[in-house]
């Protein structure tokens, strides 16, 4: 309880502060030309919100699989000194296995813009 009290309190403080500061300024209604997205004088044909082509999508999939290893690494770090060489070897193996995935992804070009 005491551990997460302060994060919650400062989060609430920050959000309330930010919202209040945005409310104190002049609040004017904007005209349609003013609200148009900035394109240096040009105009868009459609809304910007679209089925956005995320050019790096294979990377994100590789990333969520790879990132899972973090869950195992934090507890590992805590007991590392007590366990010694075993811990080093096991984590070396674990990271080695996952690095193969990164190497494979690199050779398949997933870090390029598709």
């Amino acid at each position, binding site marked *: 309880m005491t551990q997460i009290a302060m994060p*919650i309190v400062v989060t609430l403080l920050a959000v309330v502060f930010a919202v209040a500061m945005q409310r104190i300024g002049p609040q004017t209604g904007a005209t349609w030309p003013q609200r148009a997205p900035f394109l240096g004088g040009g105009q868009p044909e459609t809304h910007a919100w679209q089925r956005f082509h*995320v050019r790096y999508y294979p990377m994100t999939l590789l990333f969520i699989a790879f990132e899972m290893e973090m869950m195992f690494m934090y*507890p590992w770090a805590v007991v590392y000194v007590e366990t010694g060489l075993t811990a080093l070897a096991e984590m070396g193996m674990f990271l080695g296995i996952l690095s193969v995935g990164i190497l494979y992804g690199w050779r398949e070009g997933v870090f390029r813009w598709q």
Partner: protein
Amino acid sequence: MTDALFLALSALAIWSGWRVFRVDSMVRASFQLMVSFIAVGLIAVLLAAPYIGIATIFMMAVEMMVMALFMVMFMMNPAGLNPMVMVHQHRFSVAAGSLAFAGLSAAVLLSDLPVRPVPEGAEVVRDLGHELLGPSMLIFETAGVTLLATMIGAVVLSAHSGRYGASDAGSRPPGLTPGGAPAGRKPEGGGGHHHHHHGGH
């Protein structure tokens, strides 16, 4: 105080979980789900699991970010500019959901749950580390291999450009007889037709 916080967080988790299926914008839906996960993570910290709780927040922030990317990529009208409902078998689903909730709650209320709380001052992260490197070592390494398989599978399925060019270009199964027409389903379009014609004679 803890109880009040627990109630507030539970309400937040359930409310935002419900909103996931009620908002029009896919970005909002993904991040509503993230809020639900954050609330559950904070409840876990209240339950003396500081590692699992915070790590849930950490992992789910990332996963829901990726979720939002894919939601926007593949959903029609991703920002919900036109309000929409894309559901099927709605009544059945509502019934199934309520039934699951009622059944599980009844099971919880009726069964006699053992009481063995976490001892005060237990070093839960250290225990988990010893568990990972000791008895459950195999699980840990298996997870590594599973994740590797996932990575490779995801890349194979999703990536289009490989080392040898586009993945669907020029790939054709070998013929059943040497030099014969490719086996399997004929690809659509002119090329397939040509081969079909050739093989027919």
